[in-house]
């Protein structure tokens, strides 16, 4: 698929790019100060995403990640980001009771971390180029900074896992990160790292916060937890959860209440 291009009548530059088996959408609000630089900044961010894919993909035999996993490369000989990825995955594993894990069946697979992390770094790159208001949506994992061209907080719809034509809620804020984990489109692709079995208790888990890397990892972990996710999500102070159970019922957490309860 080719890119959707061109600044919109709302003063938003839009671009879409296929990468990592999904599509990344960029919406960048143009200002007098940044308009000359936005297109180049988005291209740089896209180049970054492709580099991440080539370097850290588990699907590419020759990726640095796979070569490291096979023992062909020392960590010191890999791109420095690999050490960062592994360290942060370990921290997330601890924070999620092992439900988020970069190791599955003894195989190194940090792909549950890499996409969100790549999006967050791309967002940082845009901010660095003066594109302080933007949205990046990587296959349903969304990072927003600043405001829309209308000056409003970004509004991100949460699609029903049962019908993509229906939204079950809208997340809004600035900054804003929204990640959803579920089985709606790729079959049972989230496995419980403790059992190796597909997670099936929940239809989808959405995490709403400020950083997509954390939101994405938490959503993956909570989805793998199944029914255990409710208690864990309710204890989070800084990320709001929205859960659609396999039975169709919905539930959302209240981070403010979690903070007061401590």
């Amino acid at each position, binding site marked *: *698929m080719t890119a*959707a291009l061109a600044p*919109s009548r*709302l003063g938003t530059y*839009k671009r*879409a790019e*296929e990468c990592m*088996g*999904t*599509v990344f*959408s960029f*919406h960048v609000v143009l200002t007098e100060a940044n308009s000359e630089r936005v297109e180049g900044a988005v291209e740089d961010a896209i180049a970054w995403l492709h580099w991440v894919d080539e370097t850290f993909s588990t699907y590419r035999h020759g990726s640095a990640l796979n070569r490291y996993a096979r023992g062909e490369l020392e960590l010191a000989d890999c791109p420095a980001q690999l050490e960062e990825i592994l360290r942060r995955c370990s921290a997330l594993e601890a924070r999620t009771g092992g439900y988020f894990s970069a190791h599955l069946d003894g195989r190194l697979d940090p792909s549950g971390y890499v996409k969100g992390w790549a999006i967050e770094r791309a967002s940082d790159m845009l901010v660095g180029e003066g594109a302080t208001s933007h*949205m990046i*949506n990587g*296959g*349903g*994992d969304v990072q*927003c900074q600043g*405001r829309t061209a209308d*000056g*409003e*907080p*970004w*509004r*991100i*719809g*949460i*699609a029903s896992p049962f019908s*993509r*034509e*229906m*939204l*079950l*809620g*809208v*997340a*809004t*804020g*600035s900054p*804003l*990160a929204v*990640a*959803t*984990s*579920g*089985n*709606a*489109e*790729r079959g049972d692709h989230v496995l419980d790292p403790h059992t190796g079995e597909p997670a099936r208790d929940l239809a989808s888990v*959405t995490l*709403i*916060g*400020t950083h997509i890397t954390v939101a994405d990892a938490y959503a993956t972990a909570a989805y793998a937890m199944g029914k255990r996710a409710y208690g864990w999500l309710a204890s989070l*102070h*800084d990320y709001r959860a929205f859960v659609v159970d396999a039975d169709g019922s*919905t539930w*959302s957490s209240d*981070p*403010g209440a979690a*903070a007061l309860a401590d």
Partner: protein
Amino acid sequence: MKRVILSIAGTIASLAALLGFKTHGAAHLATLPSASRTTPTQTPTGGGATTIGATPQPSSSSSSSGASSSSNKQSSSSSSSTAPRTAVGDAYQNQFGTVQVQVTVSGKTITNVKFVQLTAYDQHSQEINSQAGPMLLQQTLDAQSANINGVSGATYTSTSYVQSLQSALDKL
């Protein structure tokens, strides 16, 4: 200093009430229904919603004094309908402290909002308020008609993206 752009519809009093009840986060305010325009005398007289940019600033010395006062102070006014007018809303207490807002109106447009009292924002409250953070509005909507910028769902593959809502939003 927090910077927020507030989407405001309603009286000064209801604005202050909402700020007091919730947080300074714009996400909450963005959900206010259309209500009335703001007047210096704080009398709702009907009108439409107004979108403004504002930098709420706890004013340095005046904000901390008289924190218990809930009286209205009209700091300036004009008989002209277009000259900027400023009004101070009621002070509202909530569990975290006191919030009082000053609004400047030019014609029917709110041109500035600042906090004249913000005792709520001690260390602990700031923690709580920042944790309230990004907001979830739970409502069932038809995806095609919803006023959204993007969509989050269980992983969208590139194949399905072609038919997805996000791809439609990219073209708007």
